[in-house]
């Protein structure tokens, strides 16, 4: 029994499609050069230098240093605590939204803002507001409570800020999962005599368990890869990401930094493998299909009231934290002089080349985002709809990039391209230019785009494309006339996500940027470190306005040019149905009582 003929025929058919073959080759080259190669170089540098040959010295030296061992401990400790807290708060929010009847406008608004804020804000503005609210000159600590020596720098600062930054991601994940639980299962449990608590512990929670593990690990990876927050609020509490940064920018120890980067990479990689290949499949296995009917919401006041209050408080806290930023930019001297002023904004533009910074960030992100969106759609198309030999490699590498901390990637690029590829000078010309920044933007946003593209494409019946193919369309025609129009929404949101992620990116960029490019995030980081919070806030405010504008624009765009009218009509009908079912449910309750 030999599958040889089938394989060779498949290969022949593939080769008969030059567009497809070219695309695959270009894609593989891109992924290899800009993701695999820099990481491989890191590994080489961590074990080898021209002076000593192959050696373990760099690891030995790193581990010999107390600071490094402490950084590892710190990082893991923070990752675990932030992972747990974010998962818990995220689950709480999702549960309240999906299960509990809190249908006031105000609450719905709060939830929406919370899910939206972390998307549009640069990842580290919460550190700024944390310092401004609870720091030595913080409004809450100093002016409301009269505490003059509160230190937010360090462990607790990082934990609180990261939790506030990452829990919305968990919230969105859990919301999707909970909506997919068929209410009939819980009704069956209730029907057999279980209390609400028992329903949760015996049905809902076990079904969610793999999802909980998943959310925890995702947050864990995010937390230990986070660079900017520990940088601003960490003080002397070093994490791996900041240690590596200081090792290369301060101590200028390249091999040592490589060894440390390899350690950090190994940790995130291991987490990622567990998350991706073990937990994700389990989540899918327990929660398949869609809820078959509308869920009866919990109206019981003893459940609804405390949960609602808890969520509102957290949400308000987050919102106040974010609101701090624009105010920080408007007050004369934070903590002392609260007269309103535009002097920070003026300084941003007059003294600190604000226009150039925004133009540089904006321009580079604008170039990167369509490339990213298109690349990720092509990758998802190839991964989901086509079969060919290198598919596994493409999928693996583009997903793997998700687990690579920005700092690690940055070091990889320095080592890999400063002297050209393999120190031969090839591609050296892109080093220190805008091109390499754009490439970093692309690589950093590619995994998210690909993931959303893959899930969008999986929703589309395979035979729709097959039928186009069968009618005589080549792969390019199938992609442009059928696939792309069908995932237009996903493509557009991928476009904006890539833009927002690029313009708010810092961790890899800060290592690669040269003085010829002023990037907003780098400026914010610089001023925050110097303690010029007014300026940092002014930069951050404008950045938030830009990103929020981009998201608004996208929503408008999708509304008018996105999914076809009839599709939207169908959605509306469905929503109406749900509303009516809910109303009927309410009337039933009234009739009963």
């Amino acid at each position, binding site marked *: 029994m030999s599958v040889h003929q089938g394989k060779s025929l498949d290969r022949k058919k593939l080769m008969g499609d030059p567009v497809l073959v070219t695309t695959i080759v270009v894609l593989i080259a891109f992924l290899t050069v800009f993701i695999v190669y820099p990481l491989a170089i890191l590994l080489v540098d961590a074990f080898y230098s021209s002076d000593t040959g192959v050696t373990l010295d760099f690891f030995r030296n790193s581990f010999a240093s107390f600071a490094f061992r402490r950084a590892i401990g710190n990082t893991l400790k923070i990752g675990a605590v932030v992972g747990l807290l974010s998962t818990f708060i995220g689950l709480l929010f999702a549960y309240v939204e999906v299960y509990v009847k809190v249908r006031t406008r105000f609450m719905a608004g709060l939830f929406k803002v919370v899910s939206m804020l972390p998307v549009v804000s640069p990842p580290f503005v919460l550190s700024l507001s944390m310092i401004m609210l609870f720091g030595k000159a913080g409004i809450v600590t100093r002016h409301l409570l009269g505490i003059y020596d509160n230190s937010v720098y360090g462990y607790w600062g990082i934990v609180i800020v990261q939790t506030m930054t990452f829990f919305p991601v968990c919230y969105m994940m859990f919301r999707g999962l909970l909506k997919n639980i068929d209410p009939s299962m819980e009704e069956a449990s209730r029907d057999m005599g279980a209390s609400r608590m028992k329903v949760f512990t015996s049905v809902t929670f076990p079904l969610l368990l793999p999802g909980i593990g998943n959310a925890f690990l995702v947050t864990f990876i995010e937390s230990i890869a986070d660079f900017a927050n520990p940088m601003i609020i960490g003080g002397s509490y070093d994490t791996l990401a900041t240690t590596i940064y200081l090792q290369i920018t301060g101590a200028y120890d390249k091999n040592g930094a490589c060894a440390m980067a390899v350690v950090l990479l190994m940790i995130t990689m291991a987490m990622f493998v567990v998350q991706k290949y073990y937990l994700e499949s389990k989540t899918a296995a327990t929660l398949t299909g869609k809820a078959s009917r509308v869920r009866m919401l919990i109206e019981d006041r003893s459940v609804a009231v405390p949960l609602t209050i808890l969520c509102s408080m957290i949400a308000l806290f987050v919102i106040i934290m974010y609101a701090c930023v624009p105010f920080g930019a408007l007050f004369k001297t934070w903590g002392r002089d609260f007269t309103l002023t535009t002097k920070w904004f003026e300084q941003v533009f007059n003294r600190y080349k604000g226009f150039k910074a925004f133009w540089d960030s904006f321009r580079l992100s604008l170039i990167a985002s369509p490339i990213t969106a298109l690349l990720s759609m092509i990758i998802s198309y190839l991964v989901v709809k086509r079969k060919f030999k290198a598919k596994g490699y493409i999928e693996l590498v583009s997903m793997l990039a998700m687990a690579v901390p920005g700092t690690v990637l940055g070091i990889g690029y320095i080592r890999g391209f400063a002297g050209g590829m393999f120190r031969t000078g090839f591609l050296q010309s892109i080093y220190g230019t805008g091109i390499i920044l754009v490439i970093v933007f692309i690589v950093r946003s590619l995994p998210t785009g690909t993931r959303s593209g893959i899930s969008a494409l999986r929703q589309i019946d395979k035979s729709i494309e097959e039928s186009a*193919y069968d009618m005589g369309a080549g792969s390019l025609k199938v992609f442009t006339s059928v696939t792309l129009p069908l995932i237009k929404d996903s493509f557009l949101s991928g476009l904006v996500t890539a833009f927002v992620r690029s313009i708010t990116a810092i961790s890899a960029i800060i290592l690669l940027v040269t003085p010829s490019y002023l990037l907003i995030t780098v400026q914010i980081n610089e001023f925050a470190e110097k303690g010029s919070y007014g300026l940092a806030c002014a930069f951050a405010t404008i950045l938030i306005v830009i990103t929020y504008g981009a998201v608004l624009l996208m929503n408008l765009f999708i509304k008018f040019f996105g999914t076809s009218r009839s599709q939207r009509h169908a959605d509306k009908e469905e929503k109406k149905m749900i509303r009516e079912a809910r109303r009927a449910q309410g009337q039933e309750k009234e009739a009963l009582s």
Partner: protein
Amino acid sequence: MSAKAPKGVRLEHVSKIYQDPKTKKNFYAVSDCCLDIRPGSFITLLGPSGCGKTTTLRMVAGFESPDEGEIYLGDEPINALTPNKRDTAMVFQSYALFPHYNVFDNVAYGLKLRKVPKPEIARRVKDILELVELTGMEQRMTNQLSGGQQQRVALARALVVEPGVLLFDEPLSNLDAKLRVQMRTEIRRIQQKLGITAIYVTHDQSEAMSISDKIILMRKGIIEQMGSPHEIYYHPVNEFVADFIGECNFLPCMVKGSENGVVTASVIGSDVQVESDYPVKAGDMCKIVLRPEAIRIAEKGQIPCKVILSCFMGSYQNYHVMVGDTLVKIADNCPVNKRIFEVGENAFISFEKECAHLLKASK
């Protein structure tokens, strides 16, 4: 409407090997399949799920590549051609209509790819929509159509390019029972009118019987029997085929003698003479296939039985009776004016001896 000359399809020793996802072992999804489909004929690949019928169809369409053998369309070997280069058009189980196009654009898709001039596209789409009775629906989006209408659009989209062979992958399985019957007559009518070659995949035996010139019954990748619906129904080659096509009684019998291919056998206490396709000798234990509708139940007769189930089905009365130790199923047609036997009653059965068909006893 003048279709191009229909093409024949020939499969020569075609096999497809798949890997079992659990055991990682290779197995034949389709094994050594030889078919010769005449131009203009309607053949059906029939069988239970996992029998290889859809895989065979997809190999003809080009979505799967055969691991052994060669496929010909007309006289041209097409193994190495991609689906878009093959002169085939497929109607999918899920219809696979393009949701972002209206009916007209869906149907015109294949013509646009073939660079047919605009006025001709308009004319051909109009003609074909008339044929499938969808005139006036051109501007509708596909999700504003009923299931039956969507099915017609899918059919029109495949027909309009005038393919050498039309492929159907269980096209009616998403429709309700009544519509299914209506649509299959429709498909047959259109196929006959255009004289097009069609390969049809289904697991519904009544669909296969009503629509095809020839049925190919498959199991586990192997063709069990090929023949006209009549042949397959009355002369099944084995128990699997007999059982898959309609209800069946398998009655053990003993061969008493054989002469010129005519076998005398004793079955439930009565001697019958049946033709046999293979040699048997006196004393062999075989099985007689007897369709339930070939058996009658009455108050008087030769073979006594006891009724153990009596069930009104509308067009017939369904009985299970015991003849000695043997269970016999009976479908008594048009029961309205007949005496209905109740459970526990004694009765007699008789059967038309021409309807009996001899099978080798399976081990």
